[in-house]
């Protein structure tokens, strides 16, 4: 399995490919609030993350703040322990 750093780079590339208007994504940018991940793409994003971590992710109210920033994705999804 790829390291957390490689995984987060893959996430960044996946998001930037969908947003050609963006040059870069800051680790602490709120991806939800700024609609880098929008309503239509959210579940695709979850599926993409699941393919990287090779497990099902908890997508329930109360646990979703993990999806908000690249930093929280790295810390809470790619390095959950």
């Amino acid at each position: 399995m790829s390291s957390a750093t490689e995984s987060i780079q893959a996430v960044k590339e996946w998001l930037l490919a969908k947003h050609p208007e963006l040059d870069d994504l800051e680790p602490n940018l709120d991806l939800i609030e700024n609609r880098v991940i929008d309503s239509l793409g959210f579940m695709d994003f979850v599926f993409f993350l699941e393919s990287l971590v090779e497990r099902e992710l908890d997508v329930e109210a109360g646990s979703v703040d993990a999806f908000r920033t690249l930093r929280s994705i790295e810390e809470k999804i790619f390095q959950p322990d």
Partner: protein
Amino acid sequence: MATESKAPGEADGIYQISGGLATFGPEMLAIREALEQRILAWAAEIGARPMLFPPLIRARDLSRFDYFLNFPHLAVVASRIRSEVLAERYAKGGDVDAIPPDDLSAGRYVLPSAACYNVYLHLEGAVLDAPCYITTVATCFRNENAYDELQRLWSFSMREIVCLGPAEAVKEHLRSFKERISSFAAEIGLSLGTQFATDPFYQPQSSTARMQKLFPQKEEFVYGGELAIASLNFHRNFFGERCNICMTDGAPVFSGCVAFGLERWFHALLDRYQHNPERVLEALAL
């Protein structure tokens, strides 16, 4: 005349409702005016521009907001009778109970189901150097499976106060109105709860609906545990992007609106004050 099945206000003759359509007399208009005065005073405090928009919205404009993806069931569509059938089928006289779909032109316009869509369309392409506040009221329409007195009408009035600007300004707008509405409710003796909610999506399991549940964008003031009479809505930068409304740095604006369902306020106030319009007016005048 049987009045047992009617709501008290209707039985008292201060309003009539049929098929989700309400008719109001002078007592209810006085309540509406008093309520509107309070809301408009808040709008004036923040420098909101009062505006009135056309009562029809182009279907293609709503489509840009994913309206038909998310809310196709709500849309009340405006059309016209095709000119080819006017003389033969209509202008000769006779009763008309319904216009068959084959006689109608394509419905290119929709009656609004919320007041604020027109605000974003009006500001299309604007560049803002400071937060912008607009208030408007609209007669709104929503197809529903069932109608329920003043609580759920086919046609109703929605007053909104919209903020467009940086995210923090919009959040502050919503925070300040949460306080205003809470204080106002306490002042007039109305017991309201608050709850996070989602919009009435056609497909409650859609990605959009699911995301709204996970990341709440809508908080409601609820009377009697279930009737939402006002809501605070945070749209993030959705309308800013779709209508190309930007701040001077080029970033799409964020937006949020405070919405008041006026007839639902009537219901709550009448229910609270024993269906006595004079007592409602006394409470609103305090």
